[in-house]
């Protein structure tokens, strides 16, 4: 802890890491909430893995991989979104195929890139300590864009997530709204890849929101609590991993996963206690139901 504080004061890379972790938490809290309530974890997984294709291509042609990531994430979001709307029956098969093809393309391009061999591991598992100032600015502007669009489209996103059919009856362009939502999730994935890498991104996207869900009554509350939890997980992951020199991304995910498991167990225990208290009433109700016999004549 002490060493971490010293590093935080003196080292620019550590300041960048903490700042990008906090920015990432806001995005993952807001968009992760949609992923969890709309149950589109698999779609998000598909988007995040196809991103490697874009990163590989950008790297091959000499651009910063993050630009390739933005483009490929948006393309993947639209393609996968249309597949899930139009070919619902084959949705999981097609997403699974895109998922694998995206990764394979990325690996081919990275393999064929001349010059020194880049660290594939840092794309896959992230390297938050290596992010530069440029990435921090990019992530900050993506954050601002996500917050602005969610504020503008909040009621539409809520309606489409809760009841797609009824939103369609209201004539609000369900397809465009859904694709916009997926595009914002795609941008969030690009942000989170900076922190934990492609493989672990789904965990950071869903665990804070899934944990928050146990304690909230509305979507807005869930977003705020998930963002706070995300901030706690990323920062404590950085602190815990610093001195023993552990990979930060993996540490963050283990902390987030343990918190989710604990919250789930507590929730289970709490509802069991609650159930005991209600048991008397339930028995009375059961007695009433038994008295009410339905007979066929």
């Amino acid at each position, binding site marked *: 802890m002490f060493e971490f504080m010293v590093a935080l004061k003196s080292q620019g890379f550590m300041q960048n890491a903490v700042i990008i972790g906090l920015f990432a938490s806001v995005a993952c809290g807001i968009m992760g909430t949609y992923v969890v309530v709309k149950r589109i974890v698999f779609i998000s997984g598909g988007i995040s893995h196809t991103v490697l294709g874009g990163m590989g291509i950008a790297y091959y042609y000499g651009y910063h991989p993050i630009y390739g990531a933005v483009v490929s994430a948006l393309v993947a979001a639209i393609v996968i979104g249309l597949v899930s709307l139009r070919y619902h029956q084959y949705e999981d098969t097609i997403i699974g195929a895109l998922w694998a093809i995206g990764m394979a393309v990325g690996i081919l391009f990275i393999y064929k890139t001349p010059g020194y061999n880049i660290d594939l591991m840092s794309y896959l598992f992230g390297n938050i300590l290596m992010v530069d100032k440029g990435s921090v600015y990019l992530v900050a502007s993506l954050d601002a864009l996500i917050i602005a669009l969610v504020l*503008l489209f909040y*009621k539409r996103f*809520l309606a489409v997530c809760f009841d797609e059919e009824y*939103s369609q009856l*209201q004539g609000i362009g369900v397809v465009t709204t859904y694709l916009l939502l997926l595009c914002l999730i795609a941008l969030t994935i690009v942000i989170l890849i900076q922190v934990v890498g492609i493989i672990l991104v789904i965990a950071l996207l869903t665990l804070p929101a899934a944990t928050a869900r146990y304690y909230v009554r*509305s979507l807005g509350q869930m977003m705020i609590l998930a963002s706070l939890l995300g901030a706690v997980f990323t920062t404590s992951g950085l602190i815990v991993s610093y001195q023993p020199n552990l990979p930060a991304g993996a540490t963050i995910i283990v902390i987030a996963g343990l918190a989710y498991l604990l919250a789930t167990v507590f929730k289970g225990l709490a509802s069991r206690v609650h159930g005991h208290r209600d048991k008397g009433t339930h028995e009375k109700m059961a007695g009433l139901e038994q*008295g009410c016999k339905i007979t066929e004549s």
Partner: protein
Amino acid sequence: MSQKKSVIEIDHVDFAYNGDLILEDVTLTVKERDFLGVVGPNGSGKTTLLKIILGLIHPLRGKVRVFGQAPERARHLIGYVPQHTDLDSSFPISVMDVVLIGRLGKAPLLGRYGKTDRQAAEEAMQEVEIYDLRNRRFGTLSGGQKQRVLMARALVGKPNLLLLDEPTTSVDGRVEQDIYELLKKLNEQVTIILVSHDLGFISSYVKHVACVNQRLVCNPTNEITGDVIEACYSGPVHMIKHQCEL
């Protein structure tokens, strides 16, 4: 009294899904302020008929007119109450926010709902007597309460036609009666079509009954007799008697 206008005209409609014929040669006219009960066994195409009226799905053959227009164009005049069991009860959404979805088409494109939207939602909730539940989470409500929330959502758009899909599934007899009494009151101004697989209560409230089993077996203008109902369910119907000893 002048001749009542037709609200719905369905003319020789066939509907197929994945090559299976669900509805065949259905012709049906519903007049203004009618209260039509659509009955039929499970999987007979009752919900399909509602979705065709809403323009959510399109018939293979035949013509559908709602208020003299294509169904998609008449949607703003229709209130729809789907089966609440299709909705995710773990979703963190308040009753108020569910009802407000019924105003989405009229609300400002961006940003929050307007004051008029909130007022309309409050009035609709008072109408179906769920105003006190407005801040509760939708998923924590009972079946009958959820049904009322969805009715408020359908009414908040001030519809001229109300479509209900099995509104009394998973509610007990007393709540069922309450719901029908409410519908009876609404029927003074609104045309209602109600889908149900249960013949029990329906006959005492509705004005006409149509039996669907792929074809429209009995037309709403006919009198309901045992023979017709048997033809609909393709076999004798066991009347179920509710006996309550408390």
